[in-house]
C-alpha cells in the first residue's frame, strides 16, 4: 500500500505509518463531574506513546476509554481501524484479542497458579493441546524473567513480579497493541528500570505498538517515542521527549520540576468537587 498517496489528516501522521489509535475530542464524565475535556490523541504503528499525568489528571479514565471499558460522553475513538462506538460486543471482543493489557497490580486470579493465569487466554480462545500451551506459557514467563515460578500463586509473588506476570499474560496472544498501566508505580528504581528495559526489548523483538500510562517522569523519558501530558482532563502538550522537555508551558515545567501547583486552592470549590455537587 502506498501510504504517501493517502490524504493525511494531521501533520503528526506525516512520517507515513498508519495510526493504530485515533482519539478525537473525547469527553468523559463520572456522574456529574467532567473527567476528560476534549482529548485528542494519535498513536502510530510501532511507536511507544507514554500518557503522563499526576493523580486526578484523567489518565486512568483515558485508558479505560481506550480499552472500551467506559463509554465516552462525546468524541470518537478508533482502534486498529474500527470505531469503538459502532462495535457489537462480539466485534469488540474480536478486537480485544489483538491487544494486550498489563494492569497496575497484575490483576492475576488468586485462585490459579502463575502458569494457569498466563495460559488463561489460550485456554479460552484456542484449541491448542496441553504441551503447546505449556511451552508458550513458559516462553512468555521467561521473556519477563519469571521462568521457574510457574507453580507459585499470585499471593506468593512480590509487586514487581506480579506486574511482570501480568505483562506475560497480556503477551500470550501475541498482540499488535499493548497497554501498560503504571509499570513503575510502587517499585524500587532498579526493578522499575528493568521493566522499562523490558518494554523497549518487546518493541524491538515483537514490533508492537505500546501505550504506557504513568506518573513517573524518569520512566516516561526513558522509554517514550512520544509523550502526552494530561492535566485536569486536558492535553497540555504532545510531542517527542525533547519537545516536551523544552516546552515553555508553565504547568508542564512545574510537573517536570516537581513544583507544587502554585494556583491558590479554593476550599469551597474543592469541597463541592469532593461532594460531587454542581457549582
Amino acid at each position, binding site marked *: 500500500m502506498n501510504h504517501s498517496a493517502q490524504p493525511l489528516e494531521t501533520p503528526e501522521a506525516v512520517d507515513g505509518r498508519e495510526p493504530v489509535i485515533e482519539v478525537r475530542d473525547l469527553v468523559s464524565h463520572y456522574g456529574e463531574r467532567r473527567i476528560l475535556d476534549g482529548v485528542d490523541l494519535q498513536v502510530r504503528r510501532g511507536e511507544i506513546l507514554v500518557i503522563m499525568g499526576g493523580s486526578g489528571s484523567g489518565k486512568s479514565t483515558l485508558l*479505560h476509554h481506550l*480499552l*472500551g*471499558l467506559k463509554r465516552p460522553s462525546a468524541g470518537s475513538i478508533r482502534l486498529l481501524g474500527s470505531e469503538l462506538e459502532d462495535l457489537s*460486543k462480539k466485534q469488540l*471482543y*474480536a478486537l*480485544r*484479542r489483538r*491487544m*494486550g*493489557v498489563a*494492569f*497496575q*497490580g497484575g*490483576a*492475576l*486470579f488468586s485462585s490459579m497458579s502463575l502458569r494457569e493465569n498466563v495460559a*488463561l*487466554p489460550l485456554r*479460552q*480462545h484456542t484449541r491448542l493441546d496441553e504441551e503447546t500451551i505449556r511451552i508458550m506459557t513458559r516462553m512468555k514467563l521467561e521473556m519477563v524473567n519469571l521462568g521457574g515460578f510457574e507453580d507459585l500463586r499470585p499471593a506468593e509473588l512480590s509487586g514487581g513480579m506480579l506486574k511482570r506476570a*501480568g505483562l506475560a*499474560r*497480556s503477551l500470550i*496472544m501475541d498482540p499488535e497493541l499493548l*497497554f501498560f498501566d503504571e509499570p513503575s508505580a510502587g517499585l524500587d528504581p532498579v526493578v522499575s528500570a528493568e521493566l522499562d528495559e523490558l518494554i523497549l526489548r518487546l518493541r524491538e523483538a515483537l514490533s508492537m505498538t505500546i501505550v504506557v500510562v504513568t506518573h513517573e517522569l524518569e520512566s516516561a523519558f526513558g522509554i517514550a517515542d512520544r509523550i502526552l501530558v494530561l492535566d485536569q482532563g486536558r492535553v497540555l502538550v504532545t510531542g517527542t521527549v525533547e519537545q516536551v522537555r523544552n516546552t515553555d508551558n508553565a504547568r508542564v515545567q512545574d510537573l517536570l520540576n516537581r513544583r507544587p501547583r502554585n494556583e491558590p486552592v479554593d476550599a469551597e470549590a474543592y469541597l463541592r468537587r469532593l461532594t460531587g455537587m454542581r457549582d
Partner: protein
Amino acid sequence: MFRAIERLGDRTLYFIELWGQMGLFLFTTLASLLRPPYQLHPILKQIHFIGARSTLVILVAGVFTGMVVALQFYDTLVRFGSVAMLGSAVALALIRELGPVLSALVVIGRAGSAICAEIGIMRNDEQIDALECMAIDPYKYLIAPRILGGLIAVPALTMIFIVVGIFGGWFVGVVLFGVSEAAYFHGMYDTVVWHDVWMGVVKSFVFGLIIVWVATVRGFFLHLDRSGVFGAEGVSRTTTNAVVFSTIGVLVSDYLISAVML
C-alpha cells in the same frame, strides 16, 4: 420539607436504578450461557464450594432443627392426644418451611458472603477489567457458573437438610418419647403429598437463585456503589449489604411463594 421530598425522589430513583441493574445483570448472565464454550468444570467447582463444603453444617443444622421441631410439636400434640400426628407435623414443617429457609440462611452465611467478597475483590483489583480486556466475558466466566452452581447446590442441600431433620425428629419422637415408629413414619407418608414436596423444591430453587444473584451483583458493581467507598472497606460494606439484602429477599419470597402455592 422540600429537602425531604427531594430525598424521597432521590431514593426512589436509586431503587429503580438498582432493580434495573439487577435485572439486566441476570439477563446478561443467562444470555451468556447460550454462547459457547460450554464448560462443565467451573460449575462443578461452584457446586463444590457452595454445596459440598456446606454439607457438614447442613447436616448438623438439619438434625437439630428436626429435633427441636419434634420436641415442640410433641409437647403441643400430647395435650390434644394426637401424638400420632407427630411425624406428619415434623415432616410438613421441614419440607414446606424450615428446610428451604434455614438451608438458605446457612448458605448465605457460608457461601453468599464469600462469593460477594470474592467478586468485589476481583472488581477492586481490576481482575474483571482484565477479563474484559482478554476478551473473556466476565458474565459467562465468573457469574454464570456461580448462579448455576447455586441453582443446583441449594436445592440439594435443602433436600439433605429435610431428610436429616426428619430423622432428627424420629430420634426425639420415637427414641426419646416413645411414639410408635409406625405412627411416626406412616402418618408422615400418608399426610405429605407431592404438592408439599414440590413447594419445598420450588422454594429452594428460588432461594438458591436469590442468594447467588444478590451476592454476585453487589460484588460485580462494587465500583458503582453510591457510597463511593472502595478498597477493603468497600468490600466489607458491600458484603454486609449483600447478606442483609439476600436474607430479606429469601424471607419475603418465602412468604410470596407460600401464599401463591398453599
